[in-house]
């Protein structure tokens, strides 16, 4: 059915079976008023599965596992979200279904835009322009030190869209490092300067908007690019430069710590249980919820965390743990990790895609760690979303786009760029432009 010649029958069957088994749990253990609540949910989930599979079969690409996994995760997320506080698809799930569909479209868009690494590398200046426009939008349209643009009841978080753009400029800057100019005592490339400037502007913006939760995600992407830069053979970095970068990083971290608002510093050593009904309320309730759920959960819709603020976004992992159990919530996280692991099974063939994939994985890992470990009081609570699971259109679309970029690394399109020389007689006939066709 899918256009790469491989059979996906068992994977698709199991995908449907996974969602059916979840619906079975909702049927038996769920908290719903009328059977129609469940019927609508089932129709939405299975319908989305069907549409997703048909859509995947339209596009010709080398790999489809990421599409299937994205579909699986999005629908699992749809079931989770629809059940919070009682099964009600129209109240809890409809918006999530729409954003999930947007994420699927964004995934395909991300794939199409980035699968040809030479082409996307050429578009670097336009990506910088997009980042600039997004930053300007945040500065002018959010109406204050905020990251949200509210328009007729809809809220958009443009800083989310900066993430894939940032990954792309990080990857693009990596491969053009050999063109260096001397500034003072250092040989630096123009790309490195541009990237560092963009990074500083983005960090400054996050700081100004008090959206410090996203800072670690950008830092992880930049850090990954930096490490890839060190690994990149043509990046002639000497030991002095590495030491200077380490010292610079430590200094930056120290300055950031000193300048951090007191509420941020407090979070690093706050005892949530000492202020269970004050500042630590969300986290305490989240942990109590996980404990209440145990390994098997209290059943979909039976959780009490649904009454806590941000149960569907910032502490969504705990809400799932409470209703579905730590076992199932943990496996959901494992499914996301397997999605990221496909990069290892099918490695990219170009430095650009390799760096881009590492950046995407870094973004996902950082965000998952911040959300899960933050809500469970292992690290400071930052209030970022859990990829694919948390409610929120901007986050979902961005995640979809990032998965598209991962897919591009596995199913790339190599540009036809042959040196213009006279062909030798023993040369093979010209290879098709679309080698994956």
């Amino acid at each position: 059915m899918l256009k790469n010649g491989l059979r996906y029958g068992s994977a698709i069957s199991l995908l449907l079976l996974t969602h059916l088994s979840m619906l079975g749990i909702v049927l038996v253990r769920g908290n719903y008023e009328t059977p129609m609540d469940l019927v609508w949910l089932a129709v939405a989930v299975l319908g989305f599965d069907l549409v997703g599979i048909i859509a995947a079969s339209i596009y010709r690409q080398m790999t489809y596992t990421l599409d299937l996994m994205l579909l699986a995760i999005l629908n699992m997320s749809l079931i989770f979200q629809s059940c919070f506080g009682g099964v009600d698809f129209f109240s809890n799930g409809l918006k999530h279904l729409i954003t999930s569909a947007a994420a699927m479209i964004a995934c395909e868009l991300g794939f199409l835009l980035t699968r040809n690494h030479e082409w996307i590398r050429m578009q670097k200046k336009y990506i910088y322009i997009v980042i600039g426009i997004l930053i300007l939008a945040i500065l002018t349209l959010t109406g204050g030190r905020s990251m949200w643009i509210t328009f007729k009841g809809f809220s958009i978080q443009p800083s989310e869209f900066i993430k894939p753009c940032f990954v792309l400029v990080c990857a693009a800057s990596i491969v053009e490092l050999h063109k260096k100019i001397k500034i003072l005592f250092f040989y630096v490339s123009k790309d490195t300067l541009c990237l560092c400037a963009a990074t500083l502007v983005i960090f400054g913006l996050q700081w100004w908007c008090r959206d410090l939760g996203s800072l670690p995600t950008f830092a992880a992407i930049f850090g990954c690019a930096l490490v890839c830069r060190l690994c990149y053979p043509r990046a002639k970095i000497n030991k002095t430069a590495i030491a200077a970068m380490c010292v610079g990083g430590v200094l930056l971290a120290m300055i950031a710590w000193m300048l951090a608002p007191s509420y941020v510093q407090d979070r690093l050593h706050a005892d949530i249980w000492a202020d269970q009904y004050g500042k630590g309320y969300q986290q305490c309730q989240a942990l109590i919820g996980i404990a209440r759920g145990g390994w098997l959960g209290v059943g979909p819709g039976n959780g009490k965390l649904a009454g806590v603020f941000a149960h569907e976004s910032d502490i969504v992992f705990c809400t799932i743990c409470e209703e579905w159990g730590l076992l199932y919530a943990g496996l959901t996280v494992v499914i996301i990790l397997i999605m990221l692991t496909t990069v290892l099974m099918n490695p990219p063939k170009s430095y650009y895609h390799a760096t881009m994939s590492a950046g995407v994985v870094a973004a996902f890992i950082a965000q998952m760690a911040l959300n899960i470990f933050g809500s469970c009081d292992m690290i400071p609570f930052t209030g970022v979303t859990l990829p694919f699971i948390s409610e929120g259109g901007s986050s979902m679309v961005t995640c979809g786009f990032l998965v598209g970029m991962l897919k591009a690394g596995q199913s790339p399109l190599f540009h036809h760029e042959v040196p213009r020389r006279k062909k030798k007689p023993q040369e093979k006939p010209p290879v098709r432009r679309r080698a994956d066709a």
Partner: protein
Amino acid sequence: MKSIRRGQHLITIMLLVFLLMFGVLIYRLQTKAAFYISHSSDMSLGKVYDRRGDVLFDPKATAGTYGADYFIDVGNLIGDDSRQMTNTLVSQNRERLANFSFMLGEQTDGQASVCTTLDHTVNRRVYDRFGWKNGCAVAYNYVTGEIYVCFSKPSVNILDHYENIDSLEDGSLLCKVFYPTVPGSTQKIATTLAALEHMGYETLMEKSYSCIGGYQNLGGEVIKCHKDAGHGIQDINEAFANSCNPWFAQLVEDPGWKLSDIEETYHSMGYNINNEDTPQTIDVDGISAFTASTNLTDKTDFNTQWGCMGQGTTLVSPLQLMVWQSAIANQTGVATMPHLIDHTVSVSGKAGAKATTAYGQHRMFSPENAAHMREIMRYNGINRYADLLPGSVVAVKSGTAQIGKDKTENSLLTGFVDDPDFPVAFCIVIENRVSGEVTTSQIAATMLQELKTALDN
């Protein structure tokens, strides 16, 4: 090629670090789930029992099932799950009482429970013996650390569900055994121990001062004796038994030792002197108990001398007074730490290990001086309190503490039974006692006799 592989390694490291942290998270959740759930406001809790299986706390208790004032004596010690009182056994042990397992979640019919060392019957009888007087009493086995009796009056009836909270007497919601009180002359135990430690037994025995009903100290102020006619010339045994303030004032002023000597012994006994130290607490299965504090400035200063006799700003908790007795009675100088929980039972009904005896972290005074102190207290017991427990010597020290501006007097009695078969130390406080009312020795007699009968059975 090589760089792509390095990129792959980077991804592998990130995934592994995340997985490792996720593993740690699962371990934390698994091991700390009972702690988390204990903070839930609607958690199902198990029962608390005394050493004979009498119920001391039942979340489903009603006046109909147990009797209207069945829990009155342990109301502010055992407490309940309403979170009105925080320093109680139930509040501090919700994790152990939670009917919960991470595998199966909350179980309303679980068997989680806590079995204490208390004897509810004796506790209640001694409580009733106070009559209309307020105060507190505590008794424990100075060898094993098991608390047999512990209550504080006025108490709160948890079956009233705090509907009458506005009309409750002051202090009803806390067990005074764990809170500071002016120790009165029971402080002379600590002062005598300090003298033993720094002067030596022989020197102290040779000390004799005269009491003519009062003593003008080197600072020019007069310390009066409770006996207007005075006690005449006494040695330590007589002065200790007579609780003679002028004698002890002269002892404090004695040129044979320095104020720092007294401070050293006080420090090792747990005193926070002049509020310069970090306040210490005694942990009784999560219940936090005050130790002791005083102000010492100059040996010739009236307030310092007054403090060494247990008045003024000196404060000690009744529990601490009782715990010191264990170091004396055992003749080790090391305290036997008290505990209330004998063992716990899990949600599945599996009994946990029995509590083991714990000892103080350091030696407070030398075993020899503990033995000498024991003799001094025995002397007092044999001569003044021979009828407390027929057949046994009860070494004791009484005290009268002046409280507040109106100088109402609290009566205290602390000591231990010098009997290896009945090793019980105790402390009793009767608040605002006036002549003719029930005495601490009468309550001690009731407590010890009832306890002996109960433990023999």
